[in-house]
């Protein structure tokens, strides 16, 4: 009798174990972002006894290399994180699983349309975006007050236009004898993110969705490079790398700071830093267009599709997107309208101060090879900032390069 019980129990456990689908997920999140992802995965596992999601953390700079080789070797993870800007490079090469049949209509209809459109390639859905992360303007309240940049009520003045930002930054820098008026990394932050923002505000376009062609406006590109160059020739900004730009702002040595919203997991916890966050200034008469990246989940293609696994993986990534209010604690904006308007999200501190850019986000065009263009933009931006290229030369270089990459 006893033996029978043991056998039955063993069988029952065995069946349970068999029924459980294990899903491996590659992420590159660390710090505050890392904790939030792990927490959400644990919650998913607790709520779904039939699925076991196992997270594998890959170093940020290495994820795409490893993913590429893993897919080529036929042994990729079941799910991976992927920036929306990189999606066309993988989707166009048949490296990802189309997700149209796996994600529910209700969720798809809930998406901010612009983001959902970018998650498609050639009419098929290849990614489930779960955030956008715009570039924003951080300001140091203590420094701005010391510099006398306050209104009658003693509230810190916030720049609405670029000219205002430059004059405030200059005033604070000179009055307080600071290193810089605005701190920012020169590569990605200026060459791509700020460039894209200012260029879009000038009315510039990268890509024409209708004719499916790349469209750069040389005049507006040049104006943008001239603007970026002027930030440095005026002495308001100095060339520096990312850690330096952050340290200067965190240590009360820069009144303003360009960075993405992802630092919102960290900055509020820093002692001695009294800061605020707001959307980037605008060119008068323009809408507040702002650069934004986006994190998505993708299901890499395997030599042989396992429908049960794909379904379980899809279930996880859809669930994650729906529960992104939790993820938004890291600073990111949700991409589902229901989450974007939820109490859970808007109740987070300072989110109201920048959530209003959600309608004006500009992300990378849906073009194969854009990653290469993006990295070239970092480089050209640096060359302009360092005076190694005139805005005119930079414009020619960019326009030619884009043409070359798209035609390759």
């Amino acid at each position, binding site marked *: 009798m006893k033996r029978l019980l043991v056998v039955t129990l063993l069988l029952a456990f065995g069946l349970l174990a068999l029924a459980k689908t294990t899903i491996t997920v590659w992420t590159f999140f660390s710090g505050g972002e890392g904790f939030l992802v792990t927490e959400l995965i644990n919650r998913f596992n607790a709520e779904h006894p039939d699925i076991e999601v196992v997270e594998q953390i890959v170093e940020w700079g290495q994820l*795409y*290399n490893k993913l*590429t*080789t893993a*897919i*080529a070797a036929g042994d990729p993870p079941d799910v991976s994180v992927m920036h929306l800007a990189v999606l066309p*490079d993988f989707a166009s*090469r*048949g*490296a990802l699983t189309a997700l149209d049949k796996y994600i529910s209509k209700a969720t798809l209809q809930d998406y901010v349309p612009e983001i959902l459109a970018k998650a498609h390639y050639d009419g098929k859905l290849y990614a489930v975006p779960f955030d956008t992360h715009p570039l924003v303007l951080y300001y140091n309240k203590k420094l701005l007050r010391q510099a006398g940049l306050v209104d009658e009520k003693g509230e810190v003045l916030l720049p609405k236009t670029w000219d205002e930002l430059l004059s405030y930054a200059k005033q604070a820098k000179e009055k307080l004898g600071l*290193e810089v008026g605005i701190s920012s990394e*020169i*590569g990605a932050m200026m060459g791509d993110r700020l460039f894209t923002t200012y260029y879009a505000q000038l009315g510039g376009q990268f890509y024409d969705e209708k004719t499916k062609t790349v469209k750069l406006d040389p005049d507006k590109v040049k104006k943008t490079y001239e603007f970026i160059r002027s930030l440095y020739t005026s002495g308001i900004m*100095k*060339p*520096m*790398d990312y*850690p*330096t730009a952050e*340290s*200067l702002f965190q240590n009360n*040595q820069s009144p303003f700071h360009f960075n993405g919203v992802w630092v919102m997991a960290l900055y509020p916890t820093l002692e001695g830093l009294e800061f605020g966050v707001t959307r980037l200034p605008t060119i008068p008469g323009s809408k507040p267009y702002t650069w934004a990246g986006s994190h998505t989940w993708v299901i890499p293609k395997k030599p042989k599709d396992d429908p049960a696994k794909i379904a379980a993986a899809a279930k996880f990534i859809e669930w994650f997107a729906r529960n992104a209010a939790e993820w938004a604690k890291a600073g990111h904006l949700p991409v589902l309208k229901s989450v974007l308007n939820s109490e859970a999200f808007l109740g987070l501190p300072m989110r109201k101060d920048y959530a209003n850019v959600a309608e004006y986000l500009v992300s990378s065009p849906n073009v194969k*090879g854009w*990653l*290469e263009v993006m*990295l070239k933009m*970092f*480089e*050209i931006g*640096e*060359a302009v900032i*360092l005076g*190694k*290229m005139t805005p005119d030369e930079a414009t020619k270089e960019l326009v030619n390069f884009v043409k070359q990459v798209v035609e390759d």
Partner: protein
Amino acid sequence: MAVYRKKRHALLAYLFFAPFLVLLLIFRLIPFVNSIRMIFYKWDIFGTPRYIGLGNFTRMMSDKTFWASLWHTVYFVILTVPPIVVLSFLIALLINSRISFKNFLRSAFYLPYTLTISVVCITWAMLYNPYFGMIGRIMKFFGLEPINWLSDPFWAMPAIVATTVWWTIGFCIVLYLAGLQQIPTSYYEAAELDGANGFQRMFFITIPLLKRVHVLVLVTQIIASLQIFGQVYIMTAGGPAGRTRTLMQYVYEQGFRYFRMGYAQAMAFVLFLVMFVFAYLQLRLMIASAKEELV
């Protein structure tokens, strides 16, 4: 009987070799042959390679970034190798002389070589930081304007060179120390009896007798420096404005970021040819000096 034993010995030798040979075959030779084949193909890793003849090489000819990267690599070699050779020789002389704290000095100079590349690069990047780094603070103390080493198009490469020299010099010092200890003291005693001064002892005994070490250090350092990647990748990512992008960095970018595996392999092949020339040179010089010693 003797023949049989010889055969058995050979068999045994190959057997002992086998584990290494198998690994060499799988992880070196087969990939090497494949990568040489790939230089004639266009291949994005996922799809099927497409034969394009010399297409990758014509692309290289007109690729400004390739030429710039090649030049940055050569520039790095020019800046790195002479100080490594000269300094490692001088430091080895110092350690080999009759000074106190010999063992301490030997370990101190060798220590950096045992660190991993990321530790070295991240530490040096901190030192180089113009606002918070130690070098900037020292410059400020002496009333100098701190230099933004890694973000400056002129200084970025010398900064990477300084880091590299600090990191790798320990190995060359050890080679020179070994060489110095092989020179019989009787030569110096004889020279001293003949009235040779320190200068003459140095130039007529020490330096010529270290010929093989000079060749070894020089050539291995040239070959190692041609492959510079990690320092650049971690400290500047090829910046600012691409001024420190080396050939290996560009190979990596083209292959793994932009899915141009064939092109990347073709460029790596060019680097291979350059290194092959130096390796061959080393072999010739080594053989020549070995013959000399036999005479």
